[in-house]
């Protein structure tokens, strides 16, 4: 059978199984099974067991549960409740005032939590009541939260980048370092947008709060600095070539346990709860990755990825055109899939195409994560939208409208990194290997 037809059949099967409510991991296994049993002569059963096994004890993947665990521990400290008071004095004087707490707070929380919905919920829970009380514009408050909440996916140590590194076989260290600059870029773009809006209409952000001394500011954020210090130590050890991501993650876990102990939030119960939380998240992701590894091998046997990659040549797709098409595809998929599934489902087919077009896979990883971030705030399935919906009691349409400008701002950042790819690639060149 023609590879084009096979790919259509498998794609239709994949979508209908997902839509029928079958879980993502067994869907991947089922599609892989049909590809092997239906369109190749390879032994499906023994390939299944050996591929799933190989994908499950991957060294690169060992960083994943550890970073998830670190986040779970820090998440259970007083960090989240201290976030608002800790950041407020630093940003209160900027135009837009405390709205910046949402953006910077999400930026810090993102480094800790690694999941966008949790980032959004944790920061929002503290800041929304405060902002409402002071008469801030609710639409802008919701928008900043929705937009910056997604930073959790990009700002390292990011679970999403580990997942990409594993499926695309790229160095996770390099991906982490590459993720820093665009993360800061997006924070700056969001802050600039809020400042402009607040300058044009000061009524959006009425109350800046009292003037505080430098010492007061330091005292208010005494818990924030150790956490930021820990994150910087983790990233610094990777950047300096002192540690692999797994080792850095272990240091992060130990540091987080020490911090939790010092702030008095480390109990037997919270320790076990953090560990079980890490099991749930990392098990879910590792299972999907194992399924994806099998589907990817099965696809290879059918020859579909090779044929699709050759279309890139045949249609004379320029890298720019391909990126544009993929952006549209991902935004469409993001309307009903979560980030990890989206990235993993498309990898087997998309990565060979991207390589054929001569696009750097490191750059492409950052690109994908930003597009997946955008997908978190597109209806009908946008996890950040759901969080904000239940937090504010507004309907989905209002929350989506509030988030829309931030969607456009992220598109802008994609345009920026497409025009200046070195913005991502340059810091990586100075890493100690």
């Amino acid at each position, binding site marked *: 059978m023609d590879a084009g037809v096979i790919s259509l059949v498998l794609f239709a099967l994949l979508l209908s*199984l997902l839509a029928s409510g079958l879980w993502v991991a067994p869907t991947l296994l089922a599609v892989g099974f049909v590809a092997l049993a239906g369109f190749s002569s390879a032994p499906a059963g023994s390939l*299944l067991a050996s591929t799933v096994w190989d994908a499950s004890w991957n060294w690169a993947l060992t960083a994943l549960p550890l970073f998830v665990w670190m986040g779970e521990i820090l998440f259970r400290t007083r960090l989240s409740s201290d976030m608002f008071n800790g950041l407020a004095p630093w940003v209160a004087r900027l135009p837009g005032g405390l709205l910046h707490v949402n953006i910077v707070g999400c930026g810090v929380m993102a480094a800790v939590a690694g999941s966008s*919905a*949790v980032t959004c919920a944790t920061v929002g829970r503290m800041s929304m009541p405060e902002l409402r009380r002071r008469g801030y514009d609710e639409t802008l408050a919701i928008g900043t939260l929705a937009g910056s909440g997604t930073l959790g996916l990009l700002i390292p140590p990011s679970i999403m980048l580990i997942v990409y590194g594993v499926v695309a076989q790229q160095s996770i260290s390099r991906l982490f370092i590459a993720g820093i600059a665009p993360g800061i870029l997006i924070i700056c773009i969001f802050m600039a947008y809020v400042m402009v809006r607040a300058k044009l209409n000061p009524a959006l952000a009425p109350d800046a709060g009292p003037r505080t001394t430098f010492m007061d500011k330091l005292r208010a954020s005494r818990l924030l600095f150790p956490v930021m210090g820990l994150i910087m130590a983790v990233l610094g050890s990777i950047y300096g070539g002192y540690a692999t991501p797994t*080792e850095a993650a272990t240091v992060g876990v130990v540091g987080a346990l020490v911090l939790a102990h010092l702030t008095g939030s480390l109990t037997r119960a919270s320790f076990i709860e953090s*560990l079980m939380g890490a099991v749930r998240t990392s098990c879910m992701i590792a299972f999907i990755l194992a399924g994806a590894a099998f589907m990817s091998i099965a696809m290879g046997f059918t020859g579909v990825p090779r044929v699709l990659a050759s279309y890139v040549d045949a249609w004379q797709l320029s890298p720019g055109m391909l990126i544009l098409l993929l952006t549209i595809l991902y935004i469409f998929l993001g309307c009903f899939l979560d980030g990890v*599934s989206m990235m993993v489902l498309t990898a087997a087919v998309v990565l060979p195409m991207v390589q054929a077009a001569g696009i750097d896979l490191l750059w492409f990883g950052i690109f994908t994560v930003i597009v997946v971030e955008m997908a978190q705030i597109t209806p009908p399935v946008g996890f950040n939208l759901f969080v904000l919906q*239940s937090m504010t009691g507004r309907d989905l349409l209002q929350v989506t409208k509030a988030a829309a400008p931030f969607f456009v701002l992220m598109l802008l950042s994609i345009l920026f990194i497409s025009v200046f790819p070195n913005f991502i690639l340059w810091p990586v060149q100075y890493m100690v290997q």
Partner: protein
Amino acid sequence: MRRALDRLYLWSGYLAAAFLAAIAVTIIGQIVGRFFSVAIDSTETAGFCLAASTFFGIAYTYRESAHIRVTLFVRLARGSLRRYLSLWAVGMFALMIGYLTYWSFDLVYFSYKFNDISPGLLAIPFWIPRSAMALGALTLTIALIDEFVCLLRGLPATFDAAELDTAPADLKEAL
């Protein structure tokens, strides 16, 4: 029976947690070893702990409704249609994992028979870590058959409650 099964899922979850912590412990061993210039290579042991953690945790994660699926359309279904959709999803899941379980035991058996040994310094016989995969997959198969039977008897699915608000477990906690 019910209590025994629930205990099986929970304790396999605890076992997964122990293996997750064991990843960190082996890595600490490697880092400390480096300070005293003792070569401890944790690459393999950490990988084996990861695989064990994943597979022992897989049934527990299922019972906690933390595996991901698209609920966009399923959520719209009510009454008996919803029940049939749940039966279909759980049944398909059980078939796939049952198949995986069978071939995992096959893999364990042949790694034992042909004395397949890991390439690292420790040279661990592969059948030991691979047993974790087979046992974990078996536990999930049991959990899925358990769920399927419960659905047939007209009980609500374990994932129904968690999916009503479509939020993952840790998220609900955050809210």
